[in-house]
């Protein structure tokens, strides 16, 4: 017993070092095995609150750019409203049949309070949380295209897994023919992401538009992603295809969070399949 105490006495700093290092590595490994970083994240009260305060100052510097982006989006939406088909004319249609309308996706606005695009695995912090109806696994987009998926949510803040992350696997497809693939990032350049698992019979051209596939319960179909930069075929399969993002991930501010109102229903249905 005496010897054990002597041993601890002698190596107490080394043991402390070892203990703390194990704790740190435990956090790191937890963080890398996706969806487990419940403790170390910037959605909590202190860090989220501080980011909120700082971003309210930084906001002024990007006002001009954000304004022109929002005006652009408004004009596009107004033009869409003006595109009325001929048959919906008041002469032929006096009443509106409300049963023809139903809502599947709901949009909520939010602001990014902390942006990150330099690390291997990037997370963003946004200023909305559970009180605003945000839950994990919701789509985050802006008018230029996809940004990420919500991850950890606290009362007033949430973190978002950026598409610039090893662990984001988003289902996407080619716009002109419905071939599906999944989107990842190799960590090299924040302007390009990679498209994997595209079937080899897909016909590609450089410059083709990629949009979200809508196969998952998170993203609606048709959210913009980017265009094909170049592609290679090796052994009759596609090598990872470089996609240039429409979004400049280094300067994003105002975002939309998309709630899928049928998510519960889809999940329950799929769970029944697995039984």
């Amino acid at each position, binding site marked *: 017993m005496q010897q054990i105490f002597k041993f601890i006495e002698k190596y*107490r*700093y*080394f043991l*402390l*070092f070892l203990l*703390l*290092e194990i*704790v*740190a*590595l*435990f*956090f*790191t*490994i*937890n*963080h*890398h095995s996706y969806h487990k*970083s419940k403790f*170390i*994240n*910037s959605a*909590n009260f*202190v*860090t989220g609150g501080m*980011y909120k305060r*700082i971003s309210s100052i930084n906001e002024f510097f990007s006002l001009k750019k954000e304004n022109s982006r929002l005006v652009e989006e408004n004009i596009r939406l107004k033009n869409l409203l003006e595109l009325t088909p001929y048959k919906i004319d008041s002469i032929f249609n006096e009443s509106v049949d409300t049963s023809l309308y139903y809502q599947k996706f709901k949009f909520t606005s939010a602001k990014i309070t*902390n942006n*990150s*695009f*330099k*690390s*291997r*695995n990037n*997370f963003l*912090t946004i200023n909305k949380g559970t009180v605003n109806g945000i839950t994990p696994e919701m789509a985050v987009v802006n008018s230029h295209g996809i940004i990420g998926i919500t991850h950890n949510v606290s009362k007033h803040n949430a*973190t978002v897994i950026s598409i610039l992350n090893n662990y984001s696997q988003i289902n996407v497809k080619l716009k002109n023919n419905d071939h599906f693939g999944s989107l990842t990032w190799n*960590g*090299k350049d*924040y302007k390009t992401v990679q498209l994997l698992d595209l079937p080899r019979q897909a016909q590609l051209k450089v410059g083709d538009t990629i949009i979200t596939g809508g196969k998952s319960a998170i993203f609606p179909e048709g959210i913009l992603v980017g265009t094909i930069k170049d592609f290679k075929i090796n052994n009759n399969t596609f090598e990872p295809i470089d996609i240039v993002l429409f979004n400049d991930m*280094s300067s994003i501010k105002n975002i939309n969070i998309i709630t899928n109102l049928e998510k519960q229903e889809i999940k329950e249905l799929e769970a029944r399949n697995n039984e």
Partner: protein
Amino acid sequence: MNDFIKNIIWLFLLVLLQVLIFNNINLFGYTNPLIYVVFVFYYPLKKEKGAFLFLSFLLGLFIDFFSNSGGIHAAATLFIAYMRLPLLTSILNKTDFDYHLFNIRSISFIKAFSFISIQVLIHHLIVFSLDYFSFSDFGKIISKTITTSGLSIVLILIGIVLFTKKK
């Protein structure tokens, strides 16, 4: 006790400086210096070693909280904190090593420079290895370590020269 509180205030200042200013520099697109390691160089040697290790761990953990990175910075900072004394004794000769009055400005520039560079390189290597977490990204880890370390070392040296008195 007074010194201890001073060190804790110093720690929080470094966290804020790192998170609010140096994490947003984005030189050449995405190089951000990690200057908070200066805490490890400036914490007095004569102080209790256990508290020093624990504070270094906390410093890293605070940075992790802000940058959503698990325990990466905590692991790296703790490691260089533990390595500090062995490294110093091997760099300095026994003759010019006064344990109680040690200050980074009291040793020759070459020795201080090599001490800081080795510590920063080890720290950054651990940070980026744990960040990428795969052997296939080895080249990327090394290139990122070297570019970011270069920037960090330059900034830390400038900071030390400007803001501390020569003894």
